[in-house]
């Protein structure tokens, strides 16, 4: 190992903002509702000390995290808690991590993981090593002492989110409170310049808009087309009628990774069904009008640059998550920003469409309010007597609809998903997506590599480097490999479904 072999080597590892929007996954073995009326859990049995928490985008009073405007709500909630529980302090980790996955691996191995930490469900289920986060299912099934009117904690949460984000062996590793919406954002000034009076409301209008922009000498769109995102729009539409069947494979609501894998094995979400890739040529007719630079690139690598290009007024349309309006404000963009949803498709666009409104299919419970509790193996201080109960109690206090709404809406780029919460003003337009039933379909939960590999094939196809037949073959190979991996890692027998 050498730190100094080559002067050009910069050991710093960078990753783009790329929000990990994993495919819907989560399996459950159907735990029954616990008996209502159990007594509230005794709070910290006398444990005193400091609870460390990494709150990611909700970190209050942050000095070290870029782009985080000063927010205070989480600190207020913490102060409330501290006042009611003398002897306990809540300390927020004010750090930015270039490579969070690597940091988590190292810290957990050394037993110094944060007490409460941000972790997206897909990573907790698939990527991070097993055993670094506590399984919170038992607490979900019991009452939350700070939510008086609900028999169990999970009744205050979003049921579909819970069942979709469960791990293949039925565990829930985080409390999940917010949702990120996505849309096509556009530059109203450039649209005017090209003579487009209003935002496209149909697929054909979208295509003709990009053509008009191109004809006017304006770059219509320039980004790496994210396979994971767009597959969800199209597949949720094409397979809308089979949604219930697929979701039912694992006997619980929502599409988990087991559901996906079975669907692949059964030839549904599979190239043998012509709808599975039937949208690729359709999508290519759109991307043919994009700037070709990023078509075959990795979204994680180029999204930051592509976003900056859009904000600098060089491209007209940019498909992104709901954080973009904030970015635009911070950058003081010189144009008026608008947005439009993914359009509802018509039979004229493609024979496979069912006409469903799938504008909300990409957004997911993959935002910032995703907090897990470290196990004592990953965090030596959790061995202290009573500490785990204390940390869970803090989580109880934090995880109430009122607090979730308060904290999420202060940041203003995500939508709280729990019933009894309302989105922020700035988000109401995009929040409509969240209120659509989360009936999203896609593949990717079967293996950690599946999405990345599909992305590569997708990019090569859209950029014209491989033709449709080759793409189909490669895709099938990837799917087969993924379910084989899923089968062996989770001891599943697909024939019983």
């Amino acid at each position: 190992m050498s730190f100094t072999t080559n002067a050009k080597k910069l050991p710093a590892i960078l990753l783009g903002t790329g929000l990990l929007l994993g495919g819907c996954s989560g399996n459950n073995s159907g735990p029954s509702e616990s008996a209502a009326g159990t007594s509230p859990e005794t709070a910290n049995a006398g444990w005193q000390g400091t609870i460390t928490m990494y709150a990611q985008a909700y970190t209050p009073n942050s000095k070290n995290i870029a782009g985080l405007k000063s927010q205070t709500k989480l600190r207020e909630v913490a102060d409330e808690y501290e006042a009611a529980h003398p002897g306990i302090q809540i300390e927020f980790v004010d750090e930015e991590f270039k490579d969070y996955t690597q940091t988590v691996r190292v810290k957990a191995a050394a037993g110094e993981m944060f007490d409460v930490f941000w972790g997206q469900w897909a990573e907790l289920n698939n990527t991070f090593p097993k055993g670094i986060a506590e399984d919170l299912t038992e607490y979900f099934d019991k009452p939350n002492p700070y939510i008086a009117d609900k028999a169990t904690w999970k009744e205050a949460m979003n049921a579909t989110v819970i069942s979709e984000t469960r791990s293949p062996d039925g565990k829930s590793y985080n409390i999940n409170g917010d949702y990120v919406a996505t849309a096509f954002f556009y530059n109203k000034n450039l649209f005017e310049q090209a003579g487009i009076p209003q935002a496209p409301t149909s697929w054909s209008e979208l295509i003709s808009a990009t053509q008009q922009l191109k004809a006017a000498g304006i770059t219509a769109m320039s980004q790496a087309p994210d396979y994971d995102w767009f597959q969800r729009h199209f597949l949720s539409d094409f397979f809308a009628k089979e949604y219930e069947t697929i979701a039912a494979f694992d006997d619980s609501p929502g599409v988990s990774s087991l559901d996906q894998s079975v669907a692949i094995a059964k030839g549904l979400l599979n190239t043998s069904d012509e709808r599975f890739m039937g949208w690729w040529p359709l999508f290519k007719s759109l991307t043919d009008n994009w700037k070709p630079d990023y078509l075959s690139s990795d979204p994680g690598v180029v999204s930051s640059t592509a976003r900056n290009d859009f904000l600098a007024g060089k491209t007209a349309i940019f498909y992104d998550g709901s954080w973009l309006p904030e970015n635009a404000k911070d950058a003081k963009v010189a144009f008026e920003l608008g947005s439009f949803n993914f359009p509802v498709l018509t039979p004229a666009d493609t024979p496979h469409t069912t006409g469903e409104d799938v504008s909300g299919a990409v957004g997911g419970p993959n935002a910032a309010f995703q907090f897990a509790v470290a196990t004592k193996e990953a965090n030596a201080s959790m061995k202290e007597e009573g500490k785990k109960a204390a940390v869970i109690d803090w989580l109880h206090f934090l995880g109430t609809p009122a607090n979730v709404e308060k904290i999420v809406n202060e940041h203003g780029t995500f939508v709280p998903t729990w019933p009894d919460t309302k989105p922020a003003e700035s988000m109401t337009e995009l929040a409509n997506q969240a209120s659509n039933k989360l009936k999203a379909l896609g593949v990717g939960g079967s293996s950690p590599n599946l999405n990345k590999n599909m992305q590569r094939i997708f990019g090569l196809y859209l950029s014209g480097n491989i033709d449709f037949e080759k793409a189909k073959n490669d895709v099938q190979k990837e799917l087969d490999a993924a379910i084989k991996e899923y089968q062996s890692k989770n001891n599943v027998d697909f024939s019983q479904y």
Partner: protein
Amino acid sequence: MAGKAKIKSALTGYGFILPTFVFLIWFMYYPVYQALNGAFTDWDGFNSPNYIGMDNFVRMFSDEVLRQSVVNALIWVALSIVLAVIPPFFVAELIFHLKNERAQYLYRTFFVVPIVIPGIVTILLWRFLYQGDGALNQLLDIVGLGSLKQLWLGDPNIALYSIILMGFPWISAFNLLIFYSGLQSITSEIIEAAKLEGATGWKRVRTIDIPLSAPQLRLIMILTLIGSLQNIIPPLIMTNGGPGYSTYVPILHMYNVSTVNGEFGYGMAIALVMFVAILLLTLLNMRLIKSDS
């Protein structure tokens, strides 16, 4: 007497290397030993490893991605060695032959100054230059070679070369200094003797400078071999292995497998195989270019 002298010599030798090895054993060999053990397990970096024997190594054979990355690596190493040797040596010679010592000093300094430029800057610059409407393509248009325009990072056939050739004019400060010191150690007597025999200019370079720089050449070649295989930043930051797998290299594969996916056991197995391969190549290299002091 000879025995005693031998023991004394051995003790002195060990004495001199002792400080180094104290540090190496604690911070290097022990972690490496632990990580190497992982090659025979399914270690995920956190939980206790389970011994799985040669499974990791067997897996390497059916790993198509690894195959592609090895091919890419061979290309990378070959090109890197050429770029690491020829331009710096050329510039070293040019500076060396300047008459004015002040000019020598100035040029040497200015060629070394870019060493303070962090890698990320070079990458940002070249990512920008390589864009479809970026400076490189614009330059080709201006010069009238518009037909040669490419999507430098978007075309799977040339992306690899684009990344390797990033950093024109490829004058690594370190290599330059090494070659320069090598040239300086050529004594003036040899130069005079060569002049007497009528070997001047390029002839002298060929027959005297290059052979006498053999140790430096060997050093740079070995370092470049190793360095180019360890250099993860360009493929990671510029394309993350894409488009497709055209810029995927073994070090990137190891990184994705271990740090991203958490399969440290498999990653270490790949590293072990590469280690053996490179060690053999290096020994070969050392034998091919013999040094005559």
